């Protein structure tokens, strides 16, 4: 553990910042705080005076890209955010969807990329801790975690260190807190080597009446802080997240926080008990920008003011300045607003869960955020100016680099099919991620109805209440950046559609979307151009599928050595399964069942794993090789609606979508349950495209032989292509006249670890 409490060190001072109150505000100091001269002028004008150093620090984090979405807000407005099931949309700690029966689901996704690049274990662990707090602060008990990880090629020893650290960090925090990590994905590409991505999603369930909001309601109410004491870790974390990774930035280890999952578990239980017993009028965790962000956001949302006395804030370092206390991102801290008659009961709950609990101030009606320290007023700022008045930028927009056309498509002879399939199955992005998820407790809370590797999405059982039947939600998160790099708009559409398709394949109806949009610097026109087009594509897909976006996170400045990562939107999605009989997995069920492919014929190889294997990966800073085919969004909507309807009508026995590796890999994965398949003919005439082309999306299903005609008729009526391509057997997998591959050989290839020696 990183304990600096013994010495009165000052990270901000190490960057040349004087954090004492008599510091004079120079243009350099303003720049060091990531504020532009015109932003600073706006601050002086609004305050009617020069800000103090504490106020400058507060503005710098609240107006950082991470907190204020300065470059992304106008674009994000294009996403559909309303729907009859939406209880809470964007702007709160997490989105909330009503699933009926008195229950609601809170879910949210966030990035912890830069901290994980510097210190992978703690970076990932505190990412998990942070997203958990976003969920339970709404009053929901976390029931599932998902992780989307992007690394460079695993052959790079630096990557091995990062992969190990990130996976251990996720396990270390999530396992201890007792929230199952159930799904996610891991992809390896050189474009992410310099700036890895660690995106975490959390899903929680609550009784609708327990919904709690991060609002400082009721002037005169007490402001209570509980959880860990405030230390010097993580100062300026939000600003750190809002700049490019450089040698200099990597030196700022003080901007990385250290997690304490046991405290995380205690504040989780304390928070849920406080909310369930009606003891808080508003509550919020202290995440990015710590005490600063939680106080002014709560006041800003409620239109109230807030006044706090830093002398009362429990501190774990001696002699911390007001600047440091306000900007610390020490983990596992909560801020609650409590009516005076309930203070005693609230403090008792905190004591019971051994997580402190101190009244540090009160809600006022002045609209001002006032901070006192050692008897002096060190900050006095209109709360709404911090939260609502951050500048908005409309950066220059240029079309992203077009993909280079693929001269000659790789051809695959029939004799090469099996070897190609086995190589693809063993490739790091496609191979089983058991090496990761077996380290995650994915079964705690006895809810894992569909476990990792069993279906296209995780299915979580919600225990029936009062003798009622169990209910089920499905959750998924992923995003294929290779498609986005080739066509940002279509890539955005595909990402949303893939998440929805994953839910549909396990038998769930998609209800809501969250996201984490990882891009380079928005100040680069082609990055912003890709961002705008990608979000536009996402919005089109969300509208077409009828799923609202309830929140999300934008992570800009993912760059290394001046080169942006490939645009990488991650889509998290929530679905509902009303009947246990509709739960569908990917494994074949019975010998003799007919295998059908639903959806259009594959086209092209751009962005595919096969092309990566034969022509090499996309390289950072160069236009990718190979285009992707136009995408028929309406056709995709029909495909998904047909699949879900056929599942609900009991026709479909297994379902798995075609994604990385194409049809052959999909079929192989369906065989891993133990039954084989004989595929009579691969649809299309080019073997490489037919078996290994990834787009447009399709779904492979198996049905009882007698049901095949009905499925085909339904598909025809819906306008979806349906091809009978083979049947389930008791042997291995034989593809279009190739020799049969034994299931054990498929399994062995699929269980290949990304590098030798990985435990």
């Amino acid at each position, binding site marked *: 553990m990183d304990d600096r409490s013994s010495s009165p060190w000052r990270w901000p001072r190490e960057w040349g910042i004087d954090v004492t109150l008599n510091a004079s505000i120079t243009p350099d100091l303003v720049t060091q705080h990531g504020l532009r001269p015109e932003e600073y002028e706006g601050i002086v004008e609004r305050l009617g005076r020069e800000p103090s150093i504490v106020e400058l620090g507060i503005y710098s984090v609240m107006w950082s890209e991470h907190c204020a979405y300065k470059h992304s807000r106008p674009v994000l407005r294009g996403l559909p955010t309303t729907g009859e099931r939406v209880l809470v949309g964007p702007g709160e700690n997490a989105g909330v969807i009503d699933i009926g029966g008195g229950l609601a689901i809170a879910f949210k996704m966030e990035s912890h990329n830069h901290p994980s690049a510097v210190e992978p274990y703690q970076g990932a662990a505190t990412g998990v801790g942070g997203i958990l707090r976003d969920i339970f602060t709404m009053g929901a008990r976390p029931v599932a975690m998902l992780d989307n990880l992007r690394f460079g090629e695993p052959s790079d020893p630096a990557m091995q260190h990062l992969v190990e650290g990130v996976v*251990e960090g996720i*396990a270390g925090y999530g*396992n*201890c*807190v*007792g929230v199952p990590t159930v799904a996610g994905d891991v992809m390896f590409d050189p474009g992410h080597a310099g700036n890895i991505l660690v995106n975490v999603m959390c899903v929680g369930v609550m009784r609708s009446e327990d919904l709690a909001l991060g609002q400082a309601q009721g002037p005169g109410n007490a402001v209570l802080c509980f959880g860990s004491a405030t230390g010097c870790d993580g100062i300026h974390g939000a600003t750190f997240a809002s700049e490019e990774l450089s040698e200099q930035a990597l030196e700022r280890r003080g901007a990385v926080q250290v997690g*304490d*999952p*046991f*405290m995380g*578990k*205690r504040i989780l*239980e304390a928070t849920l008990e406080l909310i369930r017993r009606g003891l808080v009028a508003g509550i919020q965790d202290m995440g990015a920008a710590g005490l600063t962000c939680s106080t002014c956001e709560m006041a800003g949302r409620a239109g109230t003011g807030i006044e706090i006395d830093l002398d009362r804030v429990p501190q774990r370092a001696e002699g911390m300045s007001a600047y440091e206390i306000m900007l610390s991102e020490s983990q596992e801290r909560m801020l609650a607003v409590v009516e005076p008659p309930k203070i005693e009961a609230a403090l008792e709950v905190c004591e019971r*869960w*051994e997580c402190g609990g101190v009244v540090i101030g009160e809600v006022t009606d002045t609209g001002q955020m006032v901070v006192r320290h050692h008897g002096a007023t060190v900050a006095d700022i209109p709360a709404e100016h911090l939260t609502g008045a951050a500048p908005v930028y409309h950066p220059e927009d240029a079309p992203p680099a077009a993909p280079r056309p693929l001269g000659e498509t790789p051809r695959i002879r029939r004799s090469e099919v099996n070897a190609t399939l086995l190589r693809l199955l063993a490739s790091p992005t496609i191979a089983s991620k058991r090496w990761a*998820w*077996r*380290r*995650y*407790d*994915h*079964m*705690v*809370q*006895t809810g*894992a*109805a569909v*476990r990792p590797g069993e279906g296209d999405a995780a299915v979580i*059982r919600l*225990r*029936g209440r009062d003798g009622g039947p*169990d209910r089920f939600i499905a959750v998924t998160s992923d995003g294929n950046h290779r498609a986005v790099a080739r066509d940002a708009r279509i890539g955005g559409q595909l990402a949303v559609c893939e998440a929805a398709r994953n839910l549909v394949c396990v038998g769930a109806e998609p209800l809501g979307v969250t996201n984490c949009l990882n891009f380079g610097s928005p100040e680069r026109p082609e990055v912003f151009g890709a961002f705008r087009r990608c979000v536009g594509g996402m919005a089109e897909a969300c509208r077409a599928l009828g799923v609202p976006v309830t929140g999300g996170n934008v992570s800009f400045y993912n760059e290394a050595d001046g080169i942006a990562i490939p645009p990488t939107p991650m889509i998290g999605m929530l679905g509902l399964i009303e009947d*246990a009989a509709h739960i569908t997995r990917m494994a074949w069920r019975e010998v003799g069942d007919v295998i059908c492919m639903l959806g259009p014929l594959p086209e092209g190889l751009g962005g595919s794993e096969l092309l990566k294997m034969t022509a090499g990966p996309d390289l950072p800073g160069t236009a990718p090789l190979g285009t992707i085919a136009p995408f028929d969004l309406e056709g995709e909507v029909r495909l998904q609606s047909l699949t879900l309807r056929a599942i609900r009508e009991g026709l479909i026995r297994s379902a798995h979508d075609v994604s990385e590796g194409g049809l052959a890999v999909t079929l192989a994965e369906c065989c891993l349950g133990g039954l084989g398949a004989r595929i009579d003919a691969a649809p299309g005439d080019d073997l490489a495209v037919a078996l290994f082309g990834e787009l447009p999306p399709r779904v492979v299903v198996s049905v009882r032989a007698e049901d095949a005609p009905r499925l085909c008729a339904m598909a025809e009526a819906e306008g979806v292509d349906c091809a009978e391509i083979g049947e389930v057997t008791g042997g291995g997998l034989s593809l279009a006249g190739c020799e049969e591959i034994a299931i054990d050989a498929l399994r062995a290839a699929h269980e290949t670890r990304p590098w030798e020696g990985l*435990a």
Partner: protein
Amino acid sequence: MKTGVIIFPGSNCDQDCLDVSERVMGWEAIPCWHRDALPPGLDLVILPGGFSHGDYLRAGAIAARAPVMADVARFAQAGGPVLGICNGFQILCEAGLLPGALRINRDLIFHCEDVWLRVERRDTRFTSACPERIQMPIAHREGNYYADRETLARLEGQGLVLFRYEENPNGSVNDIAGIMSEAGNVCGMMPHPERASEDVLGCTDGRSVFESLALATGVGN
């Protein structure tokens, strides 16, 4: 049948054990806080899995010294059945109610996976309803059972090993997955029977452990 499930700060399988007791087995299940006295009239005490006190210091070491543990020891002394699952097993060892210790897995990583167990004795109050082989999940990083040679000889000699891994996942000596006390009323096991007690979770072998306990107490529902 009335069962108490002890809750320490950091326990995280407490609700699962309460739920299986109540909803699957139809028992009365009472959450018992670590600082409080054990409620009277219990037929069974379960120490659930999790990370009591964060597993800081040593898994189970702090929980073993909680106020409620003195009552649990008295309950056991009087012949009451005590089942420790995962972290509960670690706590029972730390409290001296069972011999041996659980060390970090030999490959130093957390394992969450299904394992097959051989049920070594099927005439005990924890196993009388179990078939010869049962499958259930493990989820631990410190499940590598160790006891010195003498203790091990005593455990084996007196038939106190109840569950053995068919394929050893963690390095446990003699493939031990679960043991019982000499008096036969305290059992600790690393695998999670409560995670394998419902059809919807894909496996119901774990229920046989709870069914055995129901048979043994003869209290019925």
